[in-house]
């Protein structure tokens, strides 16, 4: 009997209103609907979420580790891009 693996899905969960969906892990499921149901059982057992997204792992385009240098290193030497040169008033919180 042929035995093929179910596709892999990336699971994103929004933990509470106002926060963005966050990647929590991946799982196998035969289709999108079951991916959501499995995510509910695997990742929200302790009341972690109010919303779930499932994305086929194959549909995620990622940067390659070998491109790390050209992609990210040029930003290292440009410290003026960080907003650290402004004195912040003490009254302003959560910045």
């Amino acid at each position, binding site marked *: 009997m042929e035995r093929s693996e179910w596709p892999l899905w990336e699971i994103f969960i929004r933990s509470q209103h106002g926060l963005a969906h966050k990647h929590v892990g991946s799982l196998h499921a035969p289709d999108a609907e079951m991916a959501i149901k499995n995510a509910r*059982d695997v990742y929200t*057992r302790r009341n972690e979420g109010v919303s779930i997204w499932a994305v086929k792992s194959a549909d995620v385009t990622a940067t390659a580790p070998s491109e790390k240098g050209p992609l990210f290193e040029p930003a290292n030497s440009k410290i003026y891009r960080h907003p650290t040169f402004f004195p912040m008033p003490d009254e302003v919180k959560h910045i």
Partner: protein
Amino acid sequence: MATDRQLFDFLLRLADNDLVLAQRLGEWVGHGPVLEEDIALTNVGLDLLGQARLWFAYAGEVEARFAGAGRSEDALAFSRDGGEFRNLLLVEQPNGNYADTMARQFYFDVWHQLLLVKLAHSCDARIAEIAAKAKKEVVYHAERSADWIIRLGDGTDESQARIQAAIDDLWMYTGEMFDPDETETVLAEEGIGCDVRTLAPAWREVIGSVLDEATLTIPAGTSMQRGGKNGVHTEHLGHMLATMQSLPRSHPGAQW
């Protein structure tokens, strides 16, 4: 007028359905077809176990009213013999293959949901409260098992053959769900329980439409097995209980 003894009996039926099915689902732990499914099915089992505890706790309190002392949840679960269990024959049937497990779950979940919707309006406040809480969990169980019936039925030739066989094999255990005895009739008349006969049309409709979507055939058999509610079980229950009860029976009062 319903007696406390009848109410106790009725509560045991609710509790035993949950407990026995939870134990069956627990047997899948570590054996599920994939990790995700193993976790999902265990969650359903744990939901049912939680519900069983609520029913047992109430049953123990009711028992105290006519027997002087009521048994604890553990005593009711682990110290009764098979003949004292009041669960439906359906839920004690062995797990078989995954199609067998899902067909059993599907038949039960749809009925369970319909029953709890009714019991949530019981004039016994405690029953209404437990039913309302359990209903939320069971709505999800019913959705999930229907999903599996559709995927297995409308899947490969192999999966379709297996789920059709499971649907056919378990059909004879579904009649009992809609067949009230004196206890149920008395409690239904007083608005404590519910007339299970009235659940049949809605159950058939849901089962029919899901099996239809799953490209499966609805069984036509009319010969049904009965007895679970009165303690007359299939040979499978005793074996299951032997495993389930062995530890508390060999080490009474054991704690860890």
